[in-house]
């Protein structure tokens, strides 16, 4: 545990500029939201939400780059220092992942908070349960479904690339992984969609329609029926469980390769 704390500190020293830049970018997006002044309230909220969607996507890209910065360290020798340090490969990989996951959690919770702010600006007042679901539940669902697997995949990819190189005779494993991952995740997506709702769904935002009706009046009957069905069914839990398992598997593989790799 002593070594792990030091590895977390090392990760922070390596990556704090990226983390702080990511957090600071949210001030820019918040400023951008305030600049959207179209008259129609619904359009205004829609454009503002779209801006935050862009921020969320860019954040994912930045996190992937942040966690995957291996090449310079492989070239300059720091990788050797880490490979020969007493903590296991699993500790090294986990420290990198935990740091990036923490940064991701803070970033996406803040984005969710900005969504609440947009709703408030539009005059939509959510109750406490919906607020907690929005600010904590939704980001964690998204992180487990998309961000964590992506970060674990980038870690695994970069460990494979650093270990076997994408040049020389070792290009085959890296290339297979890059192209094979697309196919594998496609297949995984199909498999998940087949088993979705085997377990009861998570009925997130079941109180939200009330706040919308309060703000905008009765909804169109067709929309209202569809919304009720979605609210009743909730969001599926299986994709989250499967992707968390996939994340753990990829981290395990990255740690295992780290234990054996040449440098």
């Amino acid at each position: 545990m002593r070594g792990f704390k030091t590895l977390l500190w090392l990760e922070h020293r390596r990556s704090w500029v990226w983390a702080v830049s990511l957090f600071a970018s949210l001030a820019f997006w918040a400023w951008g939201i305030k600049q959207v002044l179209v008259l129609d309230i619904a359009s205004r909220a829609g454009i503002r939400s779209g801006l935050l969607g862009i921020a969320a996507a860019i954040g994912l890209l930045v996190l992937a780059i942040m966690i995957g910065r291996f090449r310079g360290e492989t070239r300059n020798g720091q990788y050797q220092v880490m490979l020969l340090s007493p903590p296991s490969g699993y500790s090294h990989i986990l420290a990198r992942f935990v740091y990036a996951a923490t940064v991701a959690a803070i970033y996406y919770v803040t984005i969710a908070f900005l969504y609440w702010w947009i709703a408030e600006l539009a005059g939509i007042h959510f109750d406490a349960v919906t607020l907690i679901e929005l600010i904590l539940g939704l980001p964690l669902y998204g992180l487990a479904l998309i961000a964590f697997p992506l970060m674990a995949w980038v870690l695994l990819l970069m460990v494979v690339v650093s270990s076997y190189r994408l040049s020389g005779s070792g290009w085959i494993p890296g290339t297979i992984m890059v192209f094979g991952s697309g196919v594998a995740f496609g297949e995984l997506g199909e498999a998940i969609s087949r088993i979705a709702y085997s377990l009861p769904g998570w009925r997130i935002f079941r109180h939200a329609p009330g706040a919308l009706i309060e703000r905008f009046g009765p909804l169109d009957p067709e929309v209202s029926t569809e919304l009720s069905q979605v609210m009743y069914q909730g969001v599926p839990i299986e994709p989250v469980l499967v992707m968390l398992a996939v994340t753990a598997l990829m981290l395990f593989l990255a740690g295992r390769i780290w234990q054996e790799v040449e440098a």
Partner: protein
Amino acid sequence: MLAHLEHVTKRYVKADGVLDLSLGFPAGEVVGVLGLNGSGKSTLLKLLAGLLQPTQGTVRVFGKAPRQARSQFVFLGEQDALWTWMTPRDAEKFMSGVYEDFDAARFNELLDVLDVPRRKTKAMSKGERGRLRLAMSLSRDVKLYLLDEPLAGIDLISREKILSSLVREWHTDETILLSTHEVAEAEGLFERVLLMKAGRIALDAQAEELRDEGKSVVDAFREVLS
């Protein structure tokens, strides 16, 4: 034996690293691993550190596969492997955090002896960074030191400081394997000399025996490798 290799061959894609090496390193030796560029010195040290896997043969360090024994030896690579943001204080934090045998008091003493400035490594000269890396390595309490070209590209004064620190810090139960091109400067340090040529051992001799024959290590180096 602290470490030994049995019929070890390491082949790279386009070249041979070392060929059929069988060597043992008992406790309490300072071994000079000498040779021309590409002779296999770094490959030998990296095999002992577990940074390379042998194509054939067995490497054992403290009776284990080298990577399993990694907390029991020091490997100082030839690369300038410090993070640019690191200060000596950061280095101390890192080393004391991951190595149980790291002695912070000894480290600070060595920083003074080696005259290492207390600033970020990106603001240090190559010699200063080399001295910092050596201070980090010598502050650990281990029995085996694998030092791969610690003098390469470093100015004369820094080289002298590094060598005098090695002499001062060495304990009789410790083994140091030092690869270097600075044969003349390091000559007085060596008890045993391994001269490598094309991945093989061209000469494995005690420095004392060479001196008894009226030869210096430099003479042997010239005679065997020229």
